[in-house]
């Protein structure tokens, strides 16, 4: 059963289109990340799902109820979708407990029920000791947890989070990522998570929908997206990747400058088309054993950066492409050094170019 379905959703602000026909299905209990750069429309999509705005066309279904459609617009408060905002939106004139209990008060629960649910929500985010504090007395991370507890206290059908961790500092972000995942697993609640941070998406989500300029690029599990990106945008967006433009000579072979490179072709593109040749930096081999027949290029080291856990190399090959490689930190390279670069075929992917 799909907890959420988006059918042919279109949205424009006046003459400016934001998206034009998006389709999405979110199975019950999934944590779906909407991932994309700024301006791709992911927050707008979330706002439409939550009911803050009315779409220009298309439908939104939750279970078997139509929430938004040509003849229907269920108001936000009746959708059962609660939301956590980027800037927390914690109400400054109420204590933590009052913030979290607000939704319960609206439901007009019996006070014992209310107390119980409130306590459970606070416990879940570990804020019981701070329940009588005011938001101004809390740190950013604590405020975000208040927002989370508030959203969960009402036991929503769907939990929506709009870049909830963007305003937190790095350590806290990591911690909170796991926190959110933990809460999701505990409650089994269908969750929509908007973010621009791909590592966040990879860690927390069951499925990721990659968006760009109002269109859905690919929907799949983190593994799918990482290992089988549908196009060059997804390839470069998820994890580190070398994305080299080239022309498809034949299926599985791409011409890049003077060289011909072999890779696994998922593009389905016709011969002569512009495609993208992708290989992860971690798979790039430098100065390998000799006598490897294919995907061997000569290049010059442009930059060598010591990163502690690894070394990051930027190499110019054939004077036409730049390739990044991640090698063990112990290996030393200097700028200008001539190296041999090997791109193992099984790690190379040929995908559609997303530049039109």
């Amino acid at each position, binding site marked *: 059963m799909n907890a959420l379905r988006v059918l042919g959703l279109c*949205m*424009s*602000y*006046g003459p400016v289109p934001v998206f034009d026909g998006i389709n999405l299905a979110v199975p019950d209990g999934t944590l779906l990340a909407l991932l994309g750069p700024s301006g791709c429309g992911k927050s707008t999509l979330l706002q*439409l799902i*939550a*009911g*803050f*705005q*009315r*779409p*220009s*066309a298309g439908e939104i279904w939750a279970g*078997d*109820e*139509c*929430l938004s459609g*040509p*003849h*229907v*617009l*269920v*108001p*936000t*408060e*009746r959708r059962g*979708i*609660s*939301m956590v*905002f980027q*800037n*927390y*939106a*914690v*109400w*400054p*004139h*109420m*204590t933590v407990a009052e913030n979290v209990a*607000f*939704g319960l008060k*609206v*439901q007009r629960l019996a006070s014992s029920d209310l107390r119980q649910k409130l306590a459970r929500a606070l416990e879940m985010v570990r804020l019981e000791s701070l329940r009588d504090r*005011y*938001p*101004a*007395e809390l740190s*950013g991370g604590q*405020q975000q947890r208040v*927002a989370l507890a*508030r*959203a969960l*206290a*009402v036991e*929503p059908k769907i939990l*929506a989070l709009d870049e909830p961790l963007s*305003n937190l500092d790095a350590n806290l972000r990591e911690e909170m990522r796991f926190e959110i995942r933990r809460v999701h697993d505990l409650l089994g609640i269908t969750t929509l998570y908007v973010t621009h941070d791909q590592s966040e998406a990879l860690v927390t989500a069951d499925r990721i929908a990659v968006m760009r300029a109002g269109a859905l690029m690919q929907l799949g599990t983190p593994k799918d997206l990482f290992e089988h990106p549908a196009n060059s945008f997804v390839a470069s967006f998820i994890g580190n990747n070398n994305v080299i433009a080239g022309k498809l000579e034949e299926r599985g072979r791409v011409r890049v400058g003077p060289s011909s490179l072999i890779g696994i072709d998922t593009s389905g593109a016709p011969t002569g088309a512009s495609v993208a040749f992708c290989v992860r930096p971690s798979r790039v081999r430098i100065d390998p054993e000799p006598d490897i027949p294919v995907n061997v290029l000569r290049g010059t080291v442009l930059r060598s950066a010591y990163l502690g856990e690894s070394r990051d190399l930027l190499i110019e090959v054939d004077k036409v492409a730049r390739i990044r490689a991640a090698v063990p930190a112990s290996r030393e390279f200097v700028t200008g050094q001539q190296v041999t670069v090997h791109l193992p075929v099984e790690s190379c992917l040929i995908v559609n170019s997303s530049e039109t």
Partner: protein
Amino acid sequence: MSVGPVIARRAPVAGIADPLLDSVRLNPVRAIAVAIVIVSLLLLVLRPLGYIAYNSLHDDLSGSWTLANYGRILSSTTLLRPILNSLVLGLAIAATSVFFGVPMAWLVARTNMPAREWVKALTLTAFVTPTFIGALAWIMIAAPNSGWVNLIWRNLTGASWPVLDIYSMGGAIFVGAIYAVPFAFTIVAAALDEMAVELEDAATTLSSGTLRTMLRITLPLAAPAIYASFILSFIQGVTLFGVPAFLLTPVRISVVTTKLAEFYQAFPPEVFLAAAYCVPLLGLTAILFYVRKRLLGRKQFVVISGKARGSRRIDIGRWRWPALAISLFVPLVAVILPYATLIAISLSKAWGLGLRPDNLTLDWYAYALFRNSQTRTAIVNSLVYAGGSATLCILLGAITAYIVERRLFRGAAWLGGLASAPIVIPGIVLSVGFFAAYTQPPLRLYGTAAILIAAFTATFLPIAYAHAGTLLKGISRDLERAARAVGAGEARTFVSITFPLMRVGLLSGWLLVFIPVTRELSVAIFLVTPSTNVMATLIYNFQDGGNYEAVCALSVVLLIVTFMVVLGTRYVSTRLSSPRAQSLLQGSAT
């Protein structure tokens, strides 16, 4: 299977604002609120203004339809020049009041300047003073021959000419501005109070100095408040009556309001011509509003975002005391000097004799408070009408601002325009408009308190609306959305979230209306009857009869009474806020 309410098949519409009909069906509470607002605005604003417009198209003598009134105005330099003078007066007053008010607001709201509470209190006292009283006091201070500043100057330097001549355009601008500064001060300080400090921190981390931060970050973010106070001060300047009547008429400079007084006092009275004469002012102010809209447009001014962090004060180090000196300038010239003069006169048996030990008495206070029953009635009336209209203004203004800011239906902006329209009508003309609109059945309010409260509400609704709008602009929509997302409907959200967040600001908005009502003269002139007399008209009567001792005693009494109310509201405000909104209220302007 539950499906939302089904409405007849219709093409999808752009997703910005709900069609009105949809709203009505989905949200009856919203519809009722909107309906109440529309009806109130119709009664308070459209009807009297309609009568004024209607009257302007009629001839005073024959009563027939005519465009001749407008014709006369446009073709006569004696009628056009006062419009120009009003424009100059208004713009100069606005510029001056912003020039003084904004730095003062910043110093009081954001920095660690000493004696901030005193500056606030004194500036508020300036607010409480009817401007015509201020003008009278300043005549005593700076009249070219008899003003004591000039007397001292002549004594000191032996010069025969005065150093200050209050009977001049400069004098009128000065007096008008010092009594308009409190507007700018209150509005901008309220906006700065709410501003999250990290917005300025961001600039400081980029090594922007304090002054630079103030100019490039703080002020632009406070831009809505600054523009609002500029416009308000302009309108104040253009609708002033007492100041130009006392300071400019003796030197033959006419402005629109003094010209209007001429029309009303002509024999036979030229009431309809007067109605037509306000239209140029309406045009001017409409232009100002349009300019403001273009300038503020779609910029983001959200400063309360629900990411609360305590307010920290900027340390201005060795500038603290000079800043205080600058901040005290306005209270000095608007309050201390004039009231010293007023008190001196009120304690004189015969004010022409000056301050002498044998000329001192408390008799005038006794007369005003105990022997004159009119005073007691007038005080009570002033307070009741001011309180009533302030409350109405705030409620109506807040809801209207919400409807407009949140664009509850297409064309909601027109409501905002309607709520703002009366501000540009000079009080005396609005007075007549209300007279005409509410003296006949079915709404026969003449002679009652209701017509005065209604007229005052209409007069100051624009201020309440603008203030509420500024407050709302600063509240992030996410705060409301968060409530909607946990199941609260629109009305509940407004009551539990939006309104409480606005509450503190609204209290200062309440005072922004209460105080001007107590000092409002022109609106009251044609609407008061003996039982509904107010302090301002009573004082004016005494002034008209030359009884300055009584005038000064009554003015001091008015000041004290109003001040007690102000202190009362401060008490209420601190009780309301208690620890809960300390995070919101540090250094609040109320």
